[in-house]
């Protein structure tokens, strides 16, 4: 699904991303951990084709994401901090808007089904302004589901959610992967990250300091590794 090779992003003399390479196959989920400012969001945005890397190669779903970003975008669903929702529109109207822009089918049945999958069908015709942060995030997930994304890119999906909300996102992701989708999650929540991912990577000083299967690690071990790696990197 993703083939990243020696990705680099430099702002002036600041090397935010300094040689990141990894592969991700269908049905896999990568949890990207790292301290604030490590470049998680930058990397995610490069993967989403929102940002051009200064150097490196990126293939998404077989398409060269740098030369043909449009082909990659057709496969990507991104839920960033903002969730891309218009506060004055209802949930249903938001979905209709984004799906029409994608050139997809906006039949009422499809919209309702997507909302039902994220348990928002009860408030389908309420304005998003009345939604909680978790509900807005779920609406974002409904949007990417409707758009038939094959690759999910989530930036801090667990932030601002209570225990039940996190559990919900986790189950959602497991279902998504079971259906063959791939996902990259940037988060600083170890427990939740370990719970959904089958691979964990730590980003520090613009590089992937570690990339291992989640099954190998226990949360405390991950925490220790994380601290040692990022302390070393910060120093």
């Amino acid at each position, binding site marked *: 699904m993703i083939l990243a090779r020696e990705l680099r992003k430099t702002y002036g003399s600041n090397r935010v991303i300094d040689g990141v390479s990894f592969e991700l196959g269908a049905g896999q989920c990568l949890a990207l951990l790292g301290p604030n400012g490590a470049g998680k969001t930058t990397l995610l945005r490069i993967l989403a084709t929102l940002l051009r890397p200064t150097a490196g190669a990126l293939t998404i779903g077989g398409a060269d994401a740098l030369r043909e970003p*449009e082909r990659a975008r057709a496969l990507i669903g991104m839920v960033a901090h*903002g*969730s*891309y929702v218009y506060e*004055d529109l209802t949930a249903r109207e938001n979905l209709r808007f984004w799906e029409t822009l*994608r050139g997809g089918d906006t039949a009422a049945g499809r919209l309702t089904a997507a909302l039902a999958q994220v348990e928002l069908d009860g408030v389908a015709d309420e304005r998003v302004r009345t939604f909680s942060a978790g509900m807005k995030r779920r609406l974002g997930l409904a949007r990417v589901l409707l758009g038939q994304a094959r690759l999910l890119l989530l930036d801090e999906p667990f932030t601002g959610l209570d225990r039940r909300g996190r559990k919900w996102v986790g189950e959602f992701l497991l279902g998504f992967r079971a259906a063959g989708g791939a996902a990259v999650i940037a988060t600083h929540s170890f427990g939740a990250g370990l719970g959904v991912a089958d691979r964990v990577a730590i980003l520090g000083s613009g590089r992937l300091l570690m990339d291992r299967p989640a099954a190998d690690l226990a949360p405390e071990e991950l925490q220790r590794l994380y601290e040692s790696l990022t302390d070393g990197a910060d120093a």
Partner: protein
Amino acid sequence: MSACAKEPGRRAVSSYAKRAWIILWKDFLIERRAKEHANALLFFCLLLLFLFQFALGPDRERLAAAVPGLLWLGVILAGLLGLGRSFLGERENDCWEGLRLTPGDKSAIYLGKLAGNCVLMAAVQIILVVLFGVFFGVDLWAPAAPLALVLGLGTIGLAAVGTLFAAMTTQLRARELLFPVLLLPVQVPVLLATVSATQALLLGQPLADVAHWLKLLAGADLVYVTIGVLTFEFVLEG
């Protein structure tokens, strides 16, 4: 067989049109619910009226002579306020990013926004024309149809560049300053054309006399919209 061959082409066009339409639909819905622009701009037009009257003094004839210029001046001032905010709604919740991520030709977004802005500016003009007619005692009803044509063409020119520059400056910190500084010099031809043509029409001259201005406006509109369509994706990328 030939119908099938035409299908992908026709589908692409209707998909493009749908995408431009949905932008207009969304902006219209939000405007109707939030009512940000409409009330404030209406009131602004009223204020402009007073501003012009006080600036030019009580001499009725002087005012009447200045009407063509004041009319378009009013449109420009309202445009600077209203157009600059075209993409402000997209800054909430990172919707701008969302727009960038949609696959397909981004110029549909430009056209949708342009259509919305044209409607907004047309509303402003109608209000101004009515207010001018009432308060300044100018007969704007007689040449109404040709006047509408002139103002319409001018509106497209103003909105075409305004929408493009609004998209650009939305991302910049100095947007309140840069937007007028960039927009106004480019609008000089539109200003000259609409004011000259309006003046001629108000003096009772027939439409044929201002045909060259209309051609200039139409040509300029075509150029501005074309550049907008071609370069919007580069502006959106930010």
